[in-house]
């Protein structure tokens, strides 16, 4: 892409999200979402083949529908309260419609069908932006309206999402689809936390973004998109196999890695509010997630499949791909659990 156009488009993606996060007028929030969606379409379409055009079309249609639902919610709120301020509590009907709009934007079940298909049709770097940066704006809106969210609705979305994210990812070998189902499941955890403690939802969002960025950057290093090519990592970049092991287990939520911190905090908040069945169900479906991460680590780091002897020697050329920030990201995504007492600062 022309570098000048790329700078303008990237700037607009960032600007759209910032406008959503910092506006006090609901119309500006809607404008921010539309700017974000418009500008991310060429980023999703880096390669000009019918598959990526189909992915862009699916993304555009679902996000435009979600923006229209947001506009409906804003209008309902305007009719009932007569003002456009985001600081005031939302009318209950407007809150329900807005929650559904944000659920469509995030890819929560039952609006999750676009996430694997869009993630599969685009480049890995575009998938990185789709799964991390695009979650910031809808989550900030959910955080702002969290006092008035209908608890039945958000917990239904959350339960369905963790179930779909777990079971949906079981039959996948394509890494981008696995990351898409991982995103659905993590969004389910975040919305469950949003009901009881929005701060823990933000904690989950930050750690999820760090983990997903690390995982996708490790995939980008060798341009692997399938489990099969990931299992050749021992030959191309042997050191990466350890990092993939640690990061994927952290994504699955195993202690003592970082991915355990948000799950622990969310379960603590839920049980403080006398909810026992919900966190039990969420933890059990997180085991499904852990299963397919374990399958990836098994074929990548823990097993070397039989191969002929001359395949064991790869000519080690100088790597040409720059891996920006990957070592600090790996450390952040595995080792920050001992910092959990710092969460006392949130009280």
């Amino acid at each position: 892409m022309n570098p000048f156009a790329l700078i303008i488009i990237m700037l607009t993606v960032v600007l759209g999200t910032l406008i959503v996060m910092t506006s006090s007028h609901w119309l500006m929030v809607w404008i921010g979402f539309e700017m974000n969606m418009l500008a991310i379409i060429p980023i999703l379409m880096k390669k000009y083949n019918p598959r990526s055009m189909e992915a862009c079309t699916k993304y555009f249609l679902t996000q435009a529908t979600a923006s229209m639902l947001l506009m409906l919610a804003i209008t309902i709120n305007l009719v009932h309260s007569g003002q456009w301020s985001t600081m005031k509590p939302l009318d209950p009907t407007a809150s329900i419609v807005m929650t559904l709009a944000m659920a469509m934007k995030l890819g929560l079940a039952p609006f999750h069908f676009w996430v694997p298909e869009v993630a599969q049709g685009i480049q890995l770097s575009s998938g990185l932006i789709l799964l991390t940066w695009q979650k910031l704006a809808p989550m900030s809106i959910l955080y702002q309206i969290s006092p008035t969210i209908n608890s039945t609705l958000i917990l239904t979305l959350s339960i369905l999402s963790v179930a779909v994210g777990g079971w949906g990812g079981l039959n996948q070998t394509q890494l981008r689809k696995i990351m898409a189902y991982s995103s659905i499941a993590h969004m389910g955890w975040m919305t469950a936390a949003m009901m009881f403690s929005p701060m823990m939802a933000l904690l989950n969002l930050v750690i999820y973004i760090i983990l997903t960025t690390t995982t996708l950057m490790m995939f980008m290093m060798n341009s692997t998109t399938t489990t099969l090519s990931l299992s050749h990592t021992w030959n191309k970049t042997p050191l990466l196999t350890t990092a993939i092991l640690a990061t994927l287990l952290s994504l699955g939520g195993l202690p003592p890695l970082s991915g355990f911190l948000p799950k622990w905090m969310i379960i603590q908040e839920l049980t403080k509010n006398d909810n026992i069945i919900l966190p039990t169900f969420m933890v059990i479906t997180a085991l499904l997630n852990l299963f397919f991460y374990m399958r990836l680590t098994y074929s990548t780091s823990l097993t070397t499949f039989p191969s002929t002897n001359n395949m064991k020697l790869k000519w080690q050329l100088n790597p040409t791909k720059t891996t920006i920030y990957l070592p600090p990201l790996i450390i952040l995504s595995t080792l920050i659990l001992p910092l959990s007492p710092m969460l006392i600062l949130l009280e």
Partner: protein
Amino acid sequence: MTYIVFILSTMFVVGFLGFSSKPSPIYGGVGLIVSGGVGCGIVMNFDGSFLGLMVFLIYLGGMMVVFGYTTAMATELYPEVWVSNKAVLGGLVVGLVMELMLVYYVLGEVHGDVVIEFSDLGDWVVYDMEDYGFVNSEAVGVSSLYSYGAWLIIVTGWSLFVGVVVIMEITRGG
């Protein structure tokens, strides 16, 4: 005259129904012209004479013309019309039935004030307490867009510019 806004808004929705069941894009042009004209009428019923003129000039006369030319370039040999298959006809009929049910609901309720309440008093009733003196409140609104709403102008201007860049990038990039 009491119900003129309601009638116009019903015609507005029916105009959109013409193309929302997805026949050929040419129907989009016709539907938008009808709905744009009716929308101008709705806006003018709320003291928006300047904005109604803007609808015709900029929306219909600028953006719709471009849309009309692009759909004319994309014509096909056997375009889809309203009666070409059951899906399109079914969508149109379902939309019309839903609109009819909404009209029946609004008019059948005791006072029927869903968004706007019907009142014969018209301009004699003061609906808001904002006093702009002797200046048309619509003119105040449009001019305050450029003073108080400067940030909105910047953001929408940037969005339009990025819209053009994005469209050029998608259609002619690579």
